[in-house]
Structures are given as structure tokens and as C-alpha cells.
């Protein structure tokens, strides 16, 4: 059985890996650009050489990407992680356990983020309405007609869109 690549010290390994996965999720899925690779290395693996850390981050990021892209359920996840522990340059079973726990906690939020990234048409951001009563009008037949006025705010992801106001009867 081939030895896995260099690992961080085991006792705190799980917590550190969990922190690394959180950091990766922050940039990749939650849009937090402040969590740089250098920041993560300094906070989690200050003793590790930059290339070593980069390789670890890339490996974990790649695994998370595969899991998120397939939106794996628990069965798929277990099969996938087990396969990863068996291959050369793969992961340890401790690491598999950390990744599994992380995915269980973050699956829904990461999936929502991926959905949001793929919605580039207008979405309905906000909607207000009121019902008016016309009590006087130049056109006699409109007197006392109830009218619903709807204000819809349409926009793209993260941008404030035009405010559409629509009147309906």
C-alpha cells in the first residue's frame, strides 16, 4: 500500500483540516475574497512550506469540488471517500472522516450558493402591492373601481435592478 503524501501532525490534524475546508468554502462558494491562501497557511499550517501547503489546499479543494459538483448524498459520499483512501496519493481515513463531517454540515448552503451562481436572469427581489379605490375620474365608468397596484423589483445577482411598477385591475 503506497504511503499517502506528507500530512500535518495528527493530533490537531482534524481541526486544522476542518479549518482548511471552511477557508476553501469561504472563497469558492461563499464569495469571501479575504480568505487568501497565505492567510490560511499562516493561520493553520504556519510550519508548512508554501508549496507543500499549496498542494494540500489544491487536493482538498479538488475533492470538495467533486463532492459539491455531484451534490453527493451520504451513500455517494461514502463510496467516493473510500475510493480516495485506497488510491495512491489519496487521503487517510481520518481525513475522509473530517471531509464527510464537513460536507454534511455545509452541503445545503454550498448547493444553494452553486444554484445562485447559475441564476443569471432577472429574479424577483421584492414585491409590494396595494389596492386603490378610484373615487373620482374623468371617465365616469372608472368611478369606484378597485385597482391593485403592484411594485416588483427585478434584478440580477447582487445588483440592484430596475424597479418595475405594474398596475393590474
Amino acid at each position, binding site marked *: 500500500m503506497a504511503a499517502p503524501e506528507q500530512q500535518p501532525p495528527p493530533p490537531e490534524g482534524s481541526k486544522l483540516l476542518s479549518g482548511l475546508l471552511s477557508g476553501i468554502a469561504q472563497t469558492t462558494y461563499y464569495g469571501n475574497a479575504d480568505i487568501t491562501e497565505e492567510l490560511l497557511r499562516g493561520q493553520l499550517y504556519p510550519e508548512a512550506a508554501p508549496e507543500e501547503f499549496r498542494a494540500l489546499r489544491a487536493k482538498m479543494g479538488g475533492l470538495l469540488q467533486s463532492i*459539491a*459538483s*455531484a*451534490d453527493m448524498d451520504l451513500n455517494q459520499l461514502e463510496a467516493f471517500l473510500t475510493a480516495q483512501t485506497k488510491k495512491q496519493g489519496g487521503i487517510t481515513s481520518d481525513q475522509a472522516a473530517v471531509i464527510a463531517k464537513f460536507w454534511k454540515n455545509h452541503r445545503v448552503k454550498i*448547493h444553494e450558493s*452553486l*444554484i445562485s*451562481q*447559475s*441564476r443569471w*436572469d*432577472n*429574479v*424577483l427581489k421584492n*414585491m409590494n*402591492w*396595494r*389596492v386603490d*379605490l378610484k*373615487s*373620482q375620474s374623468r371617465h365616469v365608468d372608472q*368611478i*369606484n373601481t*378597485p385597482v*391593485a*397596484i*403592484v*411594485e*416588483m423589483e*427585478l434584478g440580477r445577482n447582487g445588483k440592484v435592478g430596475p424597479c*418595475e*411598477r*405594474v*398596475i*393590474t*385591475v
Partner: protein
Amino acid sequence: MAAGSAAVRALAALDVGGTADKISLIPQDFFAELCEQIIQHLNHKIPGINTAELCQFVDMKWKLGVAMSSDTCRSLRFPYVAVTLSVADPSGQVTDKSFEMSIPQFKNFFRQFKEMAAVLETV
């Protein structure tokens, strides 16, 4: 109830075209909320509606779709409702406004229109 009737009688003195009768049909808490909004508008706390910008509703088309896959996620499986509203601006020109809603957003959309319909019935 007494305060409500007094208000209706006061309005009747100013009434043109039976407005007071209509107002007395509106659910009281809803009427109170409308008055509150008018007061806020008069106090410059909320914007009013510029009736010159209002568009007339002409038509609505919808479709239910499922986004299956994308470049960032192979397994999206995201159901959504896409709506296109045709509206006529004050000059009469018809334009289409399209937007998407997730299922929870659509349920809220539907619920708002149901409420509107209920109010339109009572007025």
C-alpha cells in the same frame, strides 16, 4: 366599531360617489394600514407611486423548469418558475418583463396575489 362608524359618518358629509360605503366594506385593520402608509407618505417617510410611470397589466406567461447542470455544478436539479409579464406603458407601448423565481419565492408570489384578489373582492 363606534369610532369606525363615526369616521364613516364624517366621511359621508364629504362623500362624492359613494366612497364612504366602499370604505366601510374594507377590513378595518387593512384600512388602518392604508391610512398609516398615506400618513408616512405625507411625512416624506416612504415614496409614493408616480402614476405617470404606471404600466397597465396586459398578459402573463409562465413556465416551470428544472436547471439540471451548469459549468460550476454538474448536479444542480433546481426547479424554478419563469414568468413573463406583458405590460403597456402610459403611451400604450407593450413591453415584456421576464424573471425567475425559486419554488419558495413562487409560493410567496402566489400568496401575495391571492391576498390581493381577496381584497379586491371585498372592496
